[in-house]
């Protein structure tokens, strides 16, 4: 087969691939005849079919620029306004598998979405706006107001389409996070609220003041009267938990323990001797349960021991 002939056969393979998506039986039969004409046809078809399959995990994460859509932002930033960091496919699949608890509230249009320990779930609120719930997370949404969300407990990653007329508002522990078109991650646990911004900008309202957070900034807001603390954060690490990655640069082990617990569906209590110890590095989760904790002990330089409600994290070798 000449390269010219092969080129046109490749074009034919693409046509078949397009046609068969909604093709009738005559199309399938004609396609079979085309395959039978030359063994090269099957190989060329494989190529386009595999190329299309390879898109599957990527498509949820890309931005389809539409003409006349938020041009002000597009002009300001050359890159698309938001984009998932990393691969969406694994998490999306996990989200499909995750069991969802829906608590209908008949009295108003609010409803609750919760994930169990170790589960994940992606909620699409409207075009371009998605919320991904990490494990052991509870959130409230409003059927009538898709620009509202409340984080009751746990952690979630927000990917918000900018709309100047209708800012997206998140309520968390009496604080408010108002987006200005962005990707941001929020954690609410017993100790604090943490917000990290990957793209765009949010306004964080707490304790009577408003703080503007840009991409690459994070805020730690403890339950004490202390003012919220703003720090730098690695943009690539925001929401990395969606891909089973936990990224740290000097965060206390207490936070690592809470994150691990959420991801693995276990209760992990840090002993006082390690709770404040800073940890830097990336944890890539591969498994679950005690075996996964065991695997992580060298990297964290700790020991995990079973206790009444779960596991205690202590300094390595402390048990002997």
């Amino acid at each position, binding site marked *: 087969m000449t390269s010219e002939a092969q080129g046109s056969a490749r074009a034919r393979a693409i046509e078949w691939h397009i046609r068969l998506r909604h093709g009738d039986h005559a199309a399938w039969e004609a396609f079979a005849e085309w395959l039978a004409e030359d063994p090269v046809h099957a190989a060329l078809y494989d190529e386009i079919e595999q190329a299309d399959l390879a898109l599957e995990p990527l498509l949820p994460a*890309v931005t389809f*620029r539409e003409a006349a859509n938020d041009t002000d932002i597009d002009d300001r930033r050359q890159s698309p306004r938001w984009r998932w960091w*990393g691969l969406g496919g694994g998490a999306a699949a996990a989200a499909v598998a995750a069991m969802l608890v829906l608590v209908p509230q008949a009295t108003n249009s609010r409803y609750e979405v919760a994930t169990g320990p170790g589960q994940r779930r992606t909620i699409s609120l409207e075009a371009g706006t998605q919320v991904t719930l990490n494990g052991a997370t509870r959130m409230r949404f409003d059927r009538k107001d898709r620009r509202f969300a409340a984080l009751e407990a746990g952690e979630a990653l927000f990917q918000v389409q900018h709309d100047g007329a209708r800012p997206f508002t998140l309520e968390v522990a009496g604080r408010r996070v108002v987006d200005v078109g962005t990707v941001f991650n929020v954690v609410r646990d017993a100790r604090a609220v943490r917000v990290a911004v990957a793209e765009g900008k949010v306004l964080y309202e707490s304790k009577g003041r408003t703080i503007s957070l840009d991409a690459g900034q994070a805020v730690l807001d403890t339950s004490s009267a202390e003012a919220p603390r703003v720090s730098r954060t690695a943009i690539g690490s925001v929401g990395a938990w969606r891909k089973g990655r936990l990224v740290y640069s000097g965060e206390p082990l207490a936070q690592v323990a809470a994150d691990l617990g959420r991801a693995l569906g276990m209760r992990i209590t840090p002993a006082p001797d390690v709770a404040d110890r800073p940890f830097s590095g990336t944890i890539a989760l591969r498994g679950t349960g005690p075996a996964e904790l065991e695997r992580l002990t060298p990297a964290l330089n700790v020991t995990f021991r079973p206790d009444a409600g779960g596991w205690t994290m202590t300094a390595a070798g402390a048990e002997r």
Partner: protein
Amino acid sequence: MSDDERDGQSLAGGGLVRTFTETRSALARYLSLRGATADEADDILQEVHLKLLAERIGPVAEPRAYLYRMTNNHFLGWRRSAGRRVRREEDWVDAHSGEEREIDEQPSVEAHLIAREQLALLQRVLDGLPDRTRTIFRRFRIDGEPQRRIAADIGISISAVEKHLARAYEAIAAAKFRLDGDGGDPRHLRIERGRHDI
């Protein structure tokens, strides 16, 4: 295999199983043209048959096309899991030979970088398409709209829609994406007998 009235009859519920029986040899031929061995084709069709029996699939408008699509999906599933099995075995051999593998984060960091790279590549490909081509591709590929409807909606011919889609797919094919994690040779479908654990 020329009669359309058979399709019409099988609109009545369980007709799909009967249509399957009638179409089976054509489906087997299709699988062999796609590169499956006779044994593999047999197993794949057995799987499809069982699925049809187990799931009460409602009446479908185009039963034979439906069965082709279903067979094709099962074929892809088999090919994919065959690739995965090979990889698993390679990993196992890797892990049980030579020096102990250290517990490090390299593989996943690498996988992450590849994913990032792939995503950036796809974004570039899509951004590089003309606006209308991109919109048509999104409606077809993401929203699953038939070409007919897209054509009517935009007010262009079906063949024009097809040309836009072909242009998008050509750009995608040229970019050479790697299938996430499943890698391997897509032509590789050599499933050992007796190991059908799907």
